[in-house]
């Protein structure tokens, strides 16, 4: 196997004794779009700044295109970084901002002019080249920052929550633009985000982070369908997976809360061999269907709320003290009250104690 384009091994970083990154290994292939996904404070920006050279790691190494870069100062790394607050130089026009990296490389004037034009065209801002940053909207500033980073033709493009300051409508269009830009330039991109929908829709692969560790690194589909832990299952998906605890009775049967329950034969086949007191099922709407309360294998529940979303409705049903979410088409008739919930597909199953997915399942 050829080594990855960007490979980070054994990376650790603490701020005055408080670890921000515990131990991170990560590899990104050339031309790939990777999303670093995790809740606020989990160390995403720290990892990005280490790669860019703005922070020194306590341990670990970084190679980029076969070259070890962890000792290079940031200005020799050829890595483009777009900051969350854009960090446009306020005393320079849009064109001067985009040209800055080229001037630092002492590029001849004509060539630099052409590059600036190309970069601005790529983000559709040629007409604003003479403006000052303070005269731009947030979305335009974001695109200038992007153009400035792309103009140097970086070996790697790092984006730190590039869309978080944009309103919902703009965010959607910039998402598409970013994807297109990635396709056109063939750049290798690492994008930080705490928005799972953004990561799912934009990235080739996602690295899910929590508390200074990478929990899972895979394609969006695998992350969604085979989450490595209950944390990943609860962090990813709209709505996120709900955890339903299933207990093993002394007689070998199963129980939900205090009442006994007989799972479908298909699910029982998976649950039977697990020698645990209890497991958690990671249930998404796709695993569930509404039935009569007394249908075979159904879990008895009570409808709590119904969210109307136009084409569909989300029904929140309380089962064994847990809230599960089901999806119904917009016109299906439901009232409140007692219902049954059937598990129609085998969901991922997690260890109650460790939260890890049990390897035999899902």
């Amino acid at each position, binding site marked *: 196997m050829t080594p990855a384009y960007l490979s980070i091994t054994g990376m650790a970083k603490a701020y005055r004794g408080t670890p921000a990154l515990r131990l991170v290994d990560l590899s990104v292939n050339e031309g790939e779009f990777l999303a670093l996904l995790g809740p606020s404070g989990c160390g995403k920006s720290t990892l990005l700044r280490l790669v860019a050279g703005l922070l020194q790691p306590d341990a670990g190494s970084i190679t980029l295109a076969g070259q070890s870069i962890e000792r290079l100062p940031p200005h020799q790394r050829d890595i483009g970084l777009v900051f969350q607050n854009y*960090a446009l130089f306020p005393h320079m026009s849009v064109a001067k901002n985009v040209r800055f990296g080229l001037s630092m490389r002492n590029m001849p004037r004509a060539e630099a002019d052409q590059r600036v034009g190309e970069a601005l065209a790529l983000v559709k801002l040629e007409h604003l080249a003479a403006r000052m940053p303070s005269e731009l909207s947030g979305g335009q500033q974001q695109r200038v920052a992007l153009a400035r980073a792309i103009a140097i033709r970086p070996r790697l493009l790092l984006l730190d929550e590039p869309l978080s300051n944009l309103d919902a409508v703009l965010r959607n269009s910039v998402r598409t633009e970013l994807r297109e830009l990635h396709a056109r330039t063939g750049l290798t991109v690492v994008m930080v985000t705490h928005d799972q929908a953004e990561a799912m829709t934009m990235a080739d692969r996602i690295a899910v982070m929590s508390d200074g560790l990478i929990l899972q690194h895979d394609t969006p589909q695998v992350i969604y369908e085979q989450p490595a832990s209950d944390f990943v299952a609860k962090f990813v998906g709209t709505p996120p997976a709900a955890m339903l605890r299933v207990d093993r009775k002394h007689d070998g049967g199963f129980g939900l809360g205090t009442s006994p329950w007989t799972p479908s034969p298909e699910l029982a086949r998976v649950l039977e061999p697990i020698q645990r007191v209890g497991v958690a099922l990671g249930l998404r709407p796709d695993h569930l269907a509404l039935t009569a309360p007394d249908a075979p294998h159904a879990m008895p529940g009570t409808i709590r709320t119904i969210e109307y979303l136009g084409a569909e409705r989300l029904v929140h049903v309380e089962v064994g003290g847990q809230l599960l979410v089901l999806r119904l088409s917009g016109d299906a008739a439901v009232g409140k009250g007692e219902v049954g919930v059937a598990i129609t597909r085998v969901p991922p199953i997690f260890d109650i104690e460790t939260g890890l997915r049990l390897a035999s399942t899902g």
Partner: protein
Amino acid sequence: MNLRRAGTDTIWIAWMAIGYIVVLLPIVVVVFASFSDSNTFRFPPTGYSLKWYQAAFASSEYRNALGVSLLVGLLATAVSLTAGTLAAYALSRSEFRGKSSIETLLLAPLALPHIVWAIGLLQIYAWLGIGGTLLGLVLAHAALTLPFAVRIMLSTFIQLDRTLQEAASTLGASPPRVIWHIVLPLIWPGVLTSALLTFLTSFNEVTVSVLIAGSRYLTYPVRLYSELRSQGIDPTTVAISAMLLALIVVFALIGERFLNWSRRV
């Protein structure tokens, strides 16, 4: 309701007017008196002429004093600004225990009467053997104005977004080029503001200058002061003062127009 409103407005306006009169009246007196044609200081003048201005330009004593003031002011500004900028940079970039007490301490000379401070300084200069020297005078003025410089530069550096320097470095700028292309262009209004304030403070200083420099380096305000004590008011000094005043007003207008002075200090 409206009447009451108008009433309070009138009171505020009157109050402001009193303030302006208190501050500006002495200046008006000086300006008018400088154009007087009599041989002694009087206000209001009985007739007008430019003769005191002519006398001022002819007097080598005042020219020398102005020269000393200018030299001391420029040197003190250079020293104070360099030291103040570096200190402010260090303060803005580091977090350590006792940082806020150091910031407060840096302001101490502002609160202390200059005379007290000058007496202490005199002792130290005696030990160092730089009492009565130009170096001693420049250092005294620099130390006196350092708090202004630190204060202004500190707020300048705090307003300077650090990610700008990081962005520049990821774009390929080496540390010296980051300073040249990003830091300096963004802090120069602060630098200019503290330079002007420092210079003007040094230029106006009497107490410390008298004690430190003795009679060897007479700055302009010191000369003026001693003149006043021995022979009363010489109209020549009034004319010079009026010219300095005009210069300072021009400085202040420039500072306000281009550097937002009133919001910075």
